[in-house]
């Protein structure tokens, strides 16, 4: 499918296929994404108890996602780069607006009600922050100087803080990660990174006592010992592990997951959908799904490596790694390795806005890959 560059042609000349040059799409990514999305629809059909009406909604959303991908792929990276500060500014303004007049939903202020749909500014920030940081660091020294690193950290802290108080821990983690990945890829010194990790360790108690909400603390405690509260907060993790473990090597078969069908798995069509996958398709199914995710991330990193300027490299790398964080956090949570943080399994979980954001991000990745200049 992919007929990208010949060895040694990078930086001098690029040969593009029709798919790439005319539609600005990347065959490998497109195929892998479509495969995961199709698999996701099949899993959801089972998780919904073979309810086609709800499954159809997901098909429509996935289609919207691919439209978004296609649209974003058409935007040349240069244009994106010019827009970057403005997009970030608008994103910050909307976050502030949510804080002021956000609609209350699920105890959290996350949406702006546009009348015909609800819009989550935090979703926009997932793209706006890496754009902004890539813009900030691209034209200057690689690795960045300390003053620029400090500026970047402030730019990360502001939106992440505003999202965390919404409170939307999952999205805050993702947005922060997308920003840090830019810094990491830009060659931030290991001393900075280790210092940052140490600092985070030191800040954790402060976070625990002054920032986190009770339910967030409960989640962490439950994560540490789910059996303490088997019918309360620990129930999710216990039931999820039972579903996964009972799946075994080859699973109970599609539509045959008793844990899922008898409604034992909570949030089985959203955050815990991987438990359904593991129950019905077994270890083999999980391995294959994770393999496809790795292909997607690998292809994204490859695109980043092949990109022609620092802005594109940083942006593409951050998008790929952020996508990986989705998979890591979700799979870690469902399998009991990480605390329960509300993050969907990308392309499989039922849900709209994060799907569209992810697909838009892959559109940007494709744009980076397909708008390369043939000559430099």
């Amino acid at each position, binding site marked *: 499918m992919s007929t990208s560059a010949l060895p040694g042609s990078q*930086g001098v000349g690029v040969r593009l296929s029709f798919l790439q040059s005319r539609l600005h799409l990347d065959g490998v990514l497109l195929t892998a994404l479509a495969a995961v999305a199709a698999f996701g629809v099949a899993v959801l059909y089972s998780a919904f108890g073979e309810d086609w009406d709800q499954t159809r909604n997901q098909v429509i959303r996935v289609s919207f996602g691919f439209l978004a991908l296609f649209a974003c792929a058409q935007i040349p990276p240069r244009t994106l780069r010019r827009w970057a500060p403005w997009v970030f500014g608008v994103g910050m303004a909307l976050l502030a607006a949510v804080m002021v007049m956000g609609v209350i939903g699920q105890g959290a202020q996350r949406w702006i009600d546009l009348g015909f749909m609800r819009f989550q500014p935090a979703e926009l920030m997932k793209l706006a922050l890496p754009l902004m940081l890539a813009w900030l660091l691209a*034209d200057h020294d*690689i*690795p960045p100087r300390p003053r620029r690193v400090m500026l970047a950290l402030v730019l990360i802290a502001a939106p992440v803080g505003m999202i965390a108080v919404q409170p939307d821990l999952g999205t805050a983690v993702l947005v922060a990660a997308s920003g840090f*990945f830019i810094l*990491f*890829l*830009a*060659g931030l010194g290991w001393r900075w990174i280790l210092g940052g990790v140490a600092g985070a360790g030191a800040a954790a108690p402060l976070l625990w006592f002054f920032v986190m909400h009770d339910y967030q603390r409960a989640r962490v405690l439950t994560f540490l010992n789910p059996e303490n509260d088997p019918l309360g907060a620990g129930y999710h993790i216990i*039931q999820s*592990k*039972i*579903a*996964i*473990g*009972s*799946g*075994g*090597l080859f699973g109970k078969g599609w539509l045959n997951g*008793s*844990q899922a*069908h*008898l*409604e*034992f798995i909570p949030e089985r069509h959203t955050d815990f959908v991987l438990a359904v996958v*593991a129950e019905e398709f*077994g*270890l083999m199914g*999980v*391995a294959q799904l*994770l393999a496809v*995710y*790795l292909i997607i*991330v*690998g292809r994204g*990193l490859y695109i*980043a*490596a092949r990109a022609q*300027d*620092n802005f594109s*490299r*940083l942006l593409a*790398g951050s998008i790929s*790694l952020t996508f*990986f964080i989705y998979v*890591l956090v979700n*799979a*870690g949570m469902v*399998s*009991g*390795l990480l605390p329960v943080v509300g993050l969907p399994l990308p392309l499989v979980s039922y849900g709209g806005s994060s799907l569209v954001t992810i697909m838009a991000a892959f559109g940007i990745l494709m744009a980076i890959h397909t708008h390369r200049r043939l000559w*430099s």
Partner: protein
Amino acid sequence: MSLSIRDQQQDASRIRRRIVVAGVLCILVVAGLMTQMVRLQVVDHHHYATLSQENRIKVNAIPPSRGQILDRNGAILAENRPSYQLVATPERVPDIDTMLDEVGEIIEITEAQRERFLNRLNNSRHFEALPLRTRLDEEEVAKLAVHRHRFPGLEVDARLVRHYPQGQTGSHAVGYVGRITARDLRRIDRTAYRGTNHIGKSGIEHAYEQVLHGEVGVERVETNAAGRVLRTLDRHPPRSGDDLILTLDIDLQDAAERALGDQRGAVVALDPDSGDILAMASRPHYDPNKFVRGMSRERFQELEDTGWQPLINRPIRGLYPPASTIKPFVGLAALEHDVIRPDTEIHCDGSYHVEGRDEPFRCWRDWGHGDTDFVRAVAESCNVFFYDTAFRLGIDRMSAFLEPFGFGTPTRVDTSGERSGILPNRDWKRRALGGGWYHGETVITGIGLGYFSTTPMQLARATAILANQGRIVEPRLVQTIRDGEAGHESRTAASTPQERIELNDPEHWELTTEAMRAAVEHPRGTARLIGDDLDYSLAGKTGTAQVTESREDDDEEEIPEHLRSHALFIGFAPAEDPEIAVVVVVENAEGGGGAAAAPVARAVTDVWLTEDYAFLEDLEAGRIDESEVEDEEEAPMELMP
């Protein structure tokens, strides 16, 4: 772009190095995730598969129906009645408010009931049936059946609830069931009680719990996480509890309770031949049905607050000094040991002196009985005769003789909560109180006071042995256990011990019976009040046990109720061939044993032997003139050493 190509390539390779690092990290992380998945899905697969199976399959209990309790003639004492309640399954009701309005037009639904239902609605799962009205009567059930088609989601739910058709009559003997409490849970096998809300709390209901309960049935169902039953996998039906046929005769029981009236006390009537408990009355009584429905704390307190402990099963839990009712037994002991002979006369001048004591022991009749032989001493209840007899007999021989009659040991009657009472002797005193035995204690034991205490059931058993001329019986309440399923019957181990108390001279049995007949039939007998117009011969003995130490010569009326003496009577009839042995205890009675207790016994024996209710009716109407009997006063307690 102001940077040179060389710089750009340097930047590019720097970023690429980081991309490679990131890629490697990603692969490591995925490897870590896979390790966890392998752990869950391969290593611990079996464990989780089991958990998943348990998750899915729920075992539901089907409670067995509790065995019935019947009296000896088949009258129902405890049964299971269907109790109808109206339940609504919210998810199947199109519009709750409309439904409530429309049902309210058919049967009564109070505002409070409506409110309670709506409250429950908010706190329950929508597919669970919620009670809307409990205890529907037949008419309401019929009305609802007619309109059934109008109310989808409404159902009349029938459950079996324990019911005691006799109400208060026999309530102590039968006992009652109540809600299973945390304390019950600690001692029962929880699995056997799955699905059951009630458990025997007292009386037969408690003692025969295992027999009555039956075996719980199970059905395995597949459920979802919310508990909704999806389908039944298999079913193992419950086994009903066994029915119990009691030795009790509910008519005699009722007569005994009526005879006691509002007085506190106990009546035990035994068939001396078999040990069958024909009646076992305890007053005050209570309505056991109230315990089934669950008694509020206030209502329970009300019962307790009467101060007279209505829940105590007096025939087996009440401890009373036998007082003068012990005299025939002590006399028999003295006759057997040749301490007295049938014609031995002892002079009673109203008091009796014991060596080493300044104060004399008194006879209830201040001026004494004069020269008295055994028969007269029993009939007129002379204390001095028995002071002297006991003194000469000695505590060791006396207590050894009384022991086989069952004093001081539980009768092993087949109901729960029995107390054992005290047969005083040197051994007992050393163990219980320490210290040696005094002569004075022997003397007072001889008239059934001092440390002596018995339950009415013990006294009744001893009386039955007396009536049997020594054949020992064990009282029993359950005659037959009837298999709840197959219907075949098995009798309980009925008084099989055919041991006897053998006397050196069996004539002494006759003499004792003669003495007790004299108490009833002789014009000076202490129980002469009940001796008139008897259609059968009745042997009896009265007793009066002082409660307080202070002995005022004032009128009885001025002594506070709880300090008045207990009145006792033991007897059997017909004296020649006894068919009933009866014991009556009236607590804090308005008269002595002859005035307060004897008439109760006569009413019971009349009903049992001749089905004549006249005496009972006279007694209830207050037409028995008790004033003509002198109150025998037992020895004052202050004379106790």
